[in-house]
């Protein structure tokens, strides 16, 4: 029996080695879609030079539609990156944050709050977590596009994205604001597992000398007073700063006739600029950041800014919506 157990252990050890080797082969060698990277826009921070990002935005589509890093750069000289992906769940957000802290040291981490209400099942997490540990499970489908260099080339993330994780939407579809932010005492419950994720992210931020801030991007379709109350209660109990831009019409003057791309679901470029201008100002007022617009090491940001101002849609085809 002992011999059989030993043989079983050896079998699994060899299997682990084979899986590790295959994982290395399929692992994208750069942070681009061509290299096989999944959600390349959210993983774009991997290519940013070390410790150059001041602020990290996290969240689902509300984040990559609402925050424009180059607008903040233009106005305040603060560097930021939107690590957002479609329907992002908080367990993924936490993974992104852990990953970001490996080569960046943002002073402020902003979590867009819509994802906080999105519950998920264990069955969803399991494959995702497994993929985190065993890249072969996440990137196995790359067998279709493997190149010779995938077998020997080291992993090196070098692609610096010009959009900084923001996606430009120019469509305009006015929103109906009839039921928007009607006062109520009702409190929408935040799933307890998501509160744990926020706590984990808060601890991670503290560990890395950063501050976690919760921000709700304006959205008539997704936001209401009960949501606000739910997030406010969580923020209050955890001692986290919370900014609900839905309740700040003077500071963030969203025109629901022109500033939304899809009837109040997401911001379009004009709405996103208003949101970002306010956020830039708020970030500047924290006094944590220096204006880097004239710094030589950050000159590439000005190149990207120029492209942004000229409405060149860099990296658009490389964006998972």
């Amino acid at each position, binding site marked *: 029996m002992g011999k059989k157990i030993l043989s079983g252990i050896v079998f699994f050890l060899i299997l682990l080695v084979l899986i590790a080797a295959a994982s290395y082969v399929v692992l994208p060698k750069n942070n681009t879609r061509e290299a096989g990277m999944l959600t390349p826009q959210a993983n774009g921070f991997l290519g940013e030079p070390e410790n150059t990002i001041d602020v990290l935005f996290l969240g689902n589509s509300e984040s990559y539609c609402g925050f424009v890093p180059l607008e903040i750069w233009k106005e305040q000289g603060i560097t930021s990156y939107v690590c957002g992906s479609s329907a992002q769940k908080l367990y993924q957000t936490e993974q992104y944050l852990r990953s970001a802290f490996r080569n960046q040291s943002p002073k402020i981490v902003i979590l867009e709050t819509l994802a906080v209400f999105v519950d998920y099942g264990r*069955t969803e997490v*399991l494959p995702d977590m497994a993929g985190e540990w065993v890249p072969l499970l996440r990137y196995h489908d790359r067998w279709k596009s493997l190149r010779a260099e995938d077998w020997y080339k080291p992993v090196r993330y070098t692609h610096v994205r010009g959009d900084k994780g923001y996606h430009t939407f120019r469509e305009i579809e006015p929103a109906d604001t009839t039921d928007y932010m009607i006062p109520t005492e009702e409190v929408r419950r935040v799933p307890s597992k998501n509160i744990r994720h926020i706590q984990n992210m808060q601890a991670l931020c503290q560990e890395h000398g950063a501050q976690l801030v919760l921000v709700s991007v304006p959205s008539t379709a997704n936001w209401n007073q009960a949501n606000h109350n739910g997030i406010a209660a969580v923020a209050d109990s955890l001692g986290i700063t919370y900014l609900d831009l839905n309740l700040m019409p003077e500071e963030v003057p969203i025109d629901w006739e022109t500033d939304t791309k899809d009837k109040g679901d997401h911001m379009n470029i004009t709405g996103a600029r208003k949101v970002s201008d306010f956020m830039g100002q708020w970030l500047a007022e924290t006094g944590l950041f220096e204006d880097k617009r004239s710094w030589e090491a950050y000159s590439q940001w000005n190149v990207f800014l120029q492209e942004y101002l000229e409405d060149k849609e860099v990296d658009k085809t490389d964006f998972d919506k």
Partner: protein
Amino acid sequence: MRIFSLLQAGKHATLTSFFSPMYLAFFLPACILFYAVMPKRGKKYALLLESLGFFWLVSGQYIAWLLVSIVSIWGCGLWIGWIQQKRDAAVKAAEKPQRKAIKQKYLGYTRLVLALAALGNLGILLVLKYSGFFVQNVNSVFGLKISVPAYVMPIGISFYTLQAISYLFDVYQGTVKADRNLMRVALFLSFFPQIVEGPICRYNQTADQLWNAGQIRYDNLTLGLQRIGFGLMKKLVVADRLNTFVEGVFDQYWEFQGGVIAIAAVCYTIQLYMDFSGSMDAVTGMAQIFGITMPENFKRPFFSRTISEFWTRWHVTLGTWFKDYIFYPVTMSKPMKKLTGAARKKLGNHFGPLVAGAIALFCVWFCNGVWHGAAWSFIFFGMYHFALILGGSLIAPAVKKLNEKIGFSPEKPFCHLVQVLRTCVLVVIGELFFRAAGLRAGMNMFGRMVTDFRFSSLNAALLEALSIDGADFLIVGVTVLIVFVISLLNEKGICVRGSLQKKPTPVRWAVLYALILYIIIFGAYGVGYVPVDPMYANF
């Protein structure tokens, strides 16, 4: 209510797939571990607990239907057994001339109990599965507006109901003794690997094996895991990879040429086989881990030379169930025997018995069609096979004469191949109707295949729209080839698994590593793929 929510009753529908990460990574290992640590006397109770727990996790409060079936067949089985005992005692005590009358009297009682229990169990299935279809048709025929009921069916009801009825019949016929042990009956009916998609086991095939299941043995564990791995390859690499193409064409068939529809029908047939037989490999493998031998549900069906042979190799346990509990009872009934006798005199020895046989065959195929689902397309599917099998029997003498005349010997390899291909084509046509979204859609698709058999629209853009590409088809083709070669060797009497077991360790391990990596790399799962439920779990 608090306990209900704590136990997550009915919240784990993903467990119905043997290949879901939840099942393979947690549920099955937990069951094996729990079973392994139980002392020998407790193992049967561990299996029962796991089985009922599984049902509870998947179907929640609908476990009540399963419990009703278990208790009813256990009680009625004992009742029938008690009547039979009384009959035997009465027959023994009676004089010879009175014995026949006594037997008849008690036969009436046993039939009454059997009918009560069988119809009761069948009634649950009929109400839950078919009442909506029935009311819909009544509404459309009579122009009524009766609200159409839509009941939630517990998982595996179509399978365990047939097992329940088979147990009652077997007790009635005396082939098994009525079981006094409620737990053994419960385990027979609810054994967790088989309840989702079968196989439909008989009491004397598995009840004692399950009840006497012993220690997990190393050989059984490794062989069982290998079989699960083989099933996983069929399901993940082939069936799930073909899903987007099949779904895309069948759901919007009007946009495709007949040739493309024909390819989709072939792909669906492959998908269904790989999905269902892959699941059966998993069931058989899991049972083997616990030391239980399950009846095989597939015996290389695509090597069949006729449709009748196909149905002795495809979903074997369903076929034998219909044969034993519908075909034989109908043909052996008194009126049918009389009919056969009369027909034999008028039509001769070949065609005479076919009259009663046709009636029994019609019952079998009507039930087979309806068992698969409450829809006219399924009834048509049954009738299609009925017509093919009956037609085959009717023209058999003429075909034999014709073959002799033209020198076509079915035993020659080429002729054999022609027959196999012909059967495959007929099967694919049947599966087209089986998969189509309704009978009208099936007819239209078939019409397109006949009138517009072109492939010119099948290009890269179309495949991209259907989320499949040449590389997908290539890997499907390679895997189908692997399965084909293994099947061919099995067909020639070479047991591939047995041969592999005899090979030196490095060879065995290399094959296993190749299989595992093949599944992980080429499996259709993860980003960009939608998990596909086991196809027969819906029946």
